[in-house]
């Protein structure tokens, strides 16, 4: 376990993010609802994720906006976020430490990771890590497996090529209901 953040700043950021999320403001950051949607989507991976599921929150330490987004995601997940048959256990992972993805099953990608996204995507694919982001450009460029948005209505986009590259599988009913690209 590394870079575990449980501080006041992160929780405050989470609350602020929560407020903007309910206000329906365009997403510069992931909201608590976005994270919940992403976590619920993770429950549809087959075979199911069970028990404690190591989960990375990848961010760029050099980018304050990315750090703030990562803190918001961390705050939204707390010590662990329960999904159907397991619990996502979050840990912050700087974008330069892509090798750490070998030890996780799920990764939330914060906004503003920038050029570091390429190595992260490659490492995630190599380790069959489910990558999730609220930054839709991530899934639209096939660097994330799942893109999520909670407002104004729940939108889930799945990249077929990223899914295939990561050797991940989803239930057929789930794939019938999301947008694949």
């Amino acid at each position, binding site marked *: 376990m590394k870079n575990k953040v449980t501080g006041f700043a992160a929780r405050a950021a989470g609350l602020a993010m929560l407020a903007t999320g309910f206000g*329906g403001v365009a997403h510069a950051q992931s909201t608590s609802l976005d994270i919940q*949607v992403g976590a*619920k*989507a993770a*429950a*549809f991976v*087959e*075979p199911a994720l069970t028990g404690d599921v190591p989960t990375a929150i990848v961010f760029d330490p050099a980018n304050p906006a990315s750090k703030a987004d990562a803190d918001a995601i961390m705050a939204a997940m707390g010590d662990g976020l329960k999904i*159907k048959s397991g619990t996502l256990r979050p840990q912050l992972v700087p974008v330069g430490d892509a090798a750490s993805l070998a030890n996780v099953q799920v990764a939330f990608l914060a906004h503003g990771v920038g050029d570091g996204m390429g190595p992260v995507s490659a490492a995630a694919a190599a380790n069959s890590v489910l990558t999730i982001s609220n930054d839709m450009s991530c899934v639209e460029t096939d660097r994330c497996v799942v893109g999520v948005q909670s407002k*104004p*209505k*729940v939108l*889930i986009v799945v990249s*077929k090529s990223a899914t*295939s590259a990561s050797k991940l*599988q*989803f*239930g*057929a*009913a*789930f*794939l*019938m*209901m999301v*947008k*694949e*690209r």
Partner: protein
Amino acid sequence: MKKLIVMASALIPATVSNAAYAQAVNYGDLQELFGEPVTTSATGKPQRQSEAPASMVIITGEEVRRSGVRTIPDILQNYAGIDVNRYATGQREVGIRGANMPLNPRLLVMVNGRQTYLDHYGYTDWSLLGIEMSEIQQIEVVKGPNSALFGFNAVAGVVNIITVDPLSTGNSFHGSAQGGTDGTYELSAVGNMKITDKIGMKFSGGVTEANDWKGITADHDPARENFSAELVAQLASNVRADASYTYSKSRQMMQAYQYQLYNFTTTLESLNGSVAADTSLGLIKAQVYKNSVEQQTPGIGSSVSNVVIAKLEDLFKIGARNSVRLGVEYRRDELEFINEPAGQTYYSVYSGSGMWEWQVTDKLVLTNALRLDKLNLGHGPINDPRFPYTQADYDRSMTEYSYNSSLSYTIDDETRVRIGTSRGVQAPALVGFGAATQLPSGNYYAGSPNLNASINEAYEIALDRNVAAINGAFNITGSLTKVSDFLAAGQNVTVNLPTAEYPYVRLTEDVIGDFKAYAIETTLRGRTMNDKLGWAVNYTWTDVKEDFLSPATEAIISLDEGTAAHKLNVKLDYVDGPLSAYVVGRYRSSTEQRLVTGPGYRDLGGNVTVDAKVAYAMDNGISLWVTGENLTANNAAGLSVFKADTRVLMGIGFNF
């Protein structure tokens, strides 16, 4: 042909790339993910309600329970485009977009995809569903024809009731008892057991009795009893099997042929089995079930009927933007009256169907569905030489097609418009094909093997818009339904009058003419008070235009005057911790309901009805409630042909 095979071969790898382990459609999890109800009743494909290519109402089980209703029609009547009339004790008749009638043959009702529609007379007995209110996951209503998915008789619409999944629910028990005025009592219990992580069981049962239409039905108060058991097993990570048995019995007085009152005592037993597998070739589902019905109806006769249905379907995606469902189905229907002189009437139906959803762009979706049904009619040996038809007359077949086509365009994140057209097929009821029975008077009933299907064509346009300001949504839908060669049970009395030499009177189903129904439905709903209060207002305008074959039929059947032109429903649904309150008010404009007694009809003026339930749930799992039905004491409540009842009930529930 070669070209087609090459094209199909090229598509297979794209399909296989979706290989998955997995689950069948898990309504609860998917609803939680998308934040709205999920349905398969529009196309066979799992879809969010907001994206379904049909006019739909989805009522959650939680709302059903908060409302305090005792039957499914009781809650359906609160929604736009749904007509509910009271032609019977113990239950109500449900129509979609007008033209409701006793023994309504135009609505297909199912429980978990298993039809409860009774083919022998062509109607639904809502007391025979075999389910308890506390086991409902959701009620899905599709307005308009959907024969292309479900086959015959899904012409005015479809009601598919989904029950909770014992494997997802885990160990739980719900028991309740309530009673009140008019000798009303209900006992109900539902138990879920998760035997292992991969095996779940559910048991449910209940009994009900009441005194409806006081003074009319003293010797035949309505009652129902039912019991069901379901076993679900996850055979492999991608294969799930389900087996269930349902027994239900109802006793009630119903308006039936020519709006005459008959006492029906009916028993329905059903055996159902299904297997669903998430494979590299798609989501494959096989289902087989048998419904056996015994019915005693003094004045008509006692009958035994069976229906066996076997179906197989595959649902898969081709690429990212195309979803396809392919299906085949076999159906066998049999009807025999006890002591019948003319043997068994039966038919077999062979069906093939397909659905294609094409996500043309991110905003534009085209959905098409097509189905072909071939019905082969037959009859057992006919021993009475006076019977008007020979066995050879029944050696005929009938082929019909159904379709649904819909184009949806998403204008922005909040707004969607949709246009659609559909063709549905109403098959003659088995009794209409020529069952016969000896009556106490010595006469016989005889239908005709020459009957053909009635065709429903519908056109609709709809606008859906989320309204963030009220944390809710708005919908308006306009529709036109054209029904040709409408088949109605027992409405044509002019064909043959019985004589000693020819003792058969044709008093079953026949073509009575055509009609059109115009409808506009609009709904506004929202949530307020920190999400504690849900509210909804809906209004429906309906105009039915009859074009019947004979004035005699016009005098007997009242599809136009029996339909309320204006319907307004207002609902308040409040939940605050352990306290919940549900109030609904309904206005119906004036109608004329047919009766065979007195002047032959009953004029019902415009009327307002209020139902309510207040409940308190304690921490120890015990809940208490008071329910009021027809609190405005309106004689015409529920468009009842006799004076409507007012009822107050108190209940206690146990949830563990």
